[in-house]
């Protein structure tokens, strides 16, 4: 069995008579995105502050690569913390320093790099986080969203192996929330660091997380994949997930995955007539190009627009849709067969090729940091299923049958 990178063993933390963490046990694995979810005030921030060493447990042990932190020498502890970075919930930016100086601070103070090298690294991060316009401004002169990105740039500038994000999306609008989560996912893929997030952005965090840890009543009550969480039966699910997860997903206005399943079960599973249904699966390909050309916000705007168009078209014929991944959507067409669904999809593709894709492009460019020419492709696939069989196999089948249905090329975006 894989050794956890970080492990909590019966960790208890009290503040006076109040117990915040009660014999918490958890494992965090290397190279994964692990998200700690729970209600506000549940102790999520307290939990990750133990990992970075800002708090120490009253009881129990925290193990780093199998070795208890309490038994480490100062040199070992320093080495362990050298690869860690922490993004604070309230950013904790130095308000007397410019954006550039805030991002450069850890490199200036903890490395012996030359000024030119520091400048190169800082500018790279500032560019990636779309902060070039704010480089000489002070934190008080920029918006909350930009402050978050400065904090993100500062957390990533040292190329850490482990990054802890404490509510990285708090106080952001839906587009920006997803842009930040997308940024974290992209950097995590690109640099391979271990990301530990504290969030209650359900279900948005599911799309980027490998593992979910659920903190409920001072204990970790669930550890597993987002898919396993869907099958998890516990009061936590009723009290926490349902209160955090709206009926519709904030970004795309579509059903959340859980609500999608609820509707699937209530509309199709309970129907004993065994009529077939069709699942249409859509993918927006070229996200990395969109991000590189127009920025994270514009890429998320494109995803949002696509969700809205799918919902509008298929909702009108009785379908219901949900976001499946960062750039994936699925739609259920109840009581349909493949030929009928094929016709509906054909109409959709006609509308989409004519106007929809231009709308997506226009909305994305409006949100963009630059007006660069970008290309992206929409792929779609259909698969038929019956309520008696599992939905996941049908979804996978639709995904496997995807074909290109629309493409935006540079000359179109310019026109």
């Amino acid at each position: 069995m894989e050794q956890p990178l970080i492990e909590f063993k019966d960790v208890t933390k009290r503040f006076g008579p109040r117990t915040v963490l009660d014999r918490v046990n958890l494992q965090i694995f290397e190279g994964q995105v692990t998200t700690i979810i729970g209600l506000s005030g549940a102790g999520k921030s307290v939990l990750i502050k133990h990992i970075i060493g800002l708090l120490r447990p009253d009881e129990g042990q925290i193990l780093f690569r199998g070795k208890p932190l309490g038994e480490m020498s100062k040199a070992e502890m320093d080495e362990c913390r050298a690869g860690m970075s922490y993004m604070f919930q309230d950013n904790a930016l130095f308000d007397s320093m410019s954006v550039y100086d805030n991002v450069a601070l850890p490199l200036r103070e903890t490395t012996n790099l030359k000024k030119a090298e520091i400048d190169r690294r800082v500018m790279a991060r500032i560019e990636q986080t779309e902060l070039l316009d704010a480089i000489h401004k002070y934190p008080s002169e920029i918006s909350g969203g930009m402050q978050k990105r400065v904090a993100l740039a500062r957390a990533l500038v040292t190329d850490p192996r482990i990054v802890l994000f404490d509510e990285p999306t708090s106080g952001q609008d839906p587009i920006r929330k997803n842009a930040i989560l997308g940024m974290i996912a992209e950097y995590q893929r690109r640099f391979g660091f271990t990301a530990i997030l504290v969030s209650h952005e359900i279900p948005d965090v599911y799309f980027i997380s490998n593992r979910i840890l659920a903190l409920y009543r001072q204990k970790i009550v669930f550890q597993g994949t987002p898919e396993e969480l869907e099958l998890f039966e516990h009061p936590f699910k009723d009290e926490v997930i349902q209160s955090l997860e709206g009926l519709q997903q904030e970004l795309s206005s579509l059903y959340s995955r859980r609500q999608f399943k609820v509707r699937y079960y209530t509309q199709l599973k309970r129907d004993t007539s065994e009529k077939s249904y069709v699942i249409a699966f859509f993918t927006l390909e070229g996200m990395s190009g969109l991000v590189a050309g127009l920025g994270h916000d514009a890429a998320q705007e494109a995803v949002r627009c696509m969700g809205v168009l799918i919902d509008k078209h298929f909702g009108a014929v009785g379908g219901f849709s949900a976001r499946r991944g960062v750039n994936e959507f699925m739609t259920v067409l109840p009581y349909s067969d493949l030929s009928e669904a094929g016709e509906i999809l054909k109409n959709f593709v006609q509308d989409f090729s004519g106007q929809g894709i231009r709308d997506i492009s226009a909305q994305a460019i409006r949100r963009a940091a630059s007006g660069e020419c970008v290309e992206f492709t929409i792929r779609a696939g259909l698969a038929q299923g019956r309520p008696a069989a599992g939905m996941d196999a049908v979804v996978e089948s639709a995904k496997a049958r995807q074909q290109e249905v629309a493409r935006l090329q540079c000359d179109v975006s310019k026109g």
Partner: protein
Amino acid sequence: MAMNENRTENAEAERPQGVLSFLTWPFAATGRSFIGWVNHMGAATIFLLLACLKVFRPKQLSKIIQQVYYIGASSILIIMLVSLFTGMVLGLQSYHALVKFGAQGSLGTLVALSLVRELGPVLTAIMITARAGSAITAQIGIERISEQIDALDTMRIDSLSYLISPRVVASIISFPILTAVFDLIGIFGGYVSGVLLLGANAGAYFYRVQESLELKDVTDGFIKAVVFAVIVALVCCYQGYFAHMREDSRGAKAVGLATTSAVVLSCVLILVADYIVTSLLI
């Protein structure tokens, strides 16, 4: 938050209940205050020792220069203004007192010795406390409550070395220099009021200044300035650094109270230390 709730609950528990508790409560409260005071003294001593040890780390020079500019150079105008009028008032009062005995020739002696031995170091320290000390406490306090100091720790930047050590060293450098400026301008102020305005003899004034001042007077004044520098830097940095642990308030209010405490405590300790150092040096 949890700590705050804890403090409230502790305060509830500490209230006297029953006759016996009511009678013993003043002693318990005094004991607790004394223990708290001893704790603070211990913490402040460790704080100062660590800050002094961490001066000898790389990349400190630029921070020290920055702080010397902020604590020292930026305070020079106010020090000059205060010292000029202090010297003028001293010259004015002394002249009228001395003229009764026909000893107005000793005006230079009185002004110079008063300023160099006592008023220079003490008033300089009090003025820097008011101008720079309060700002140091407020700045560090805000950095503490907005988690900026925690952020330094997570970036592996030693907050004591980054924030406190340069300020302690900069104070030790700035206080004696500003004291010297205070002394010089003060003597000039005495000349303005005593000689230029009241007509005392200029030659006698400067002769007496030169004759009465010994090197020991000047070095004693500088020793006091260094002692006051350590006191002001320690008190102001300590109050700001631990603003979040105040039991009487939280958040912005805690920073405000920490700033007030820093100024009041620094001024009191300057006067107490002045007496002790004078009695040791005399």
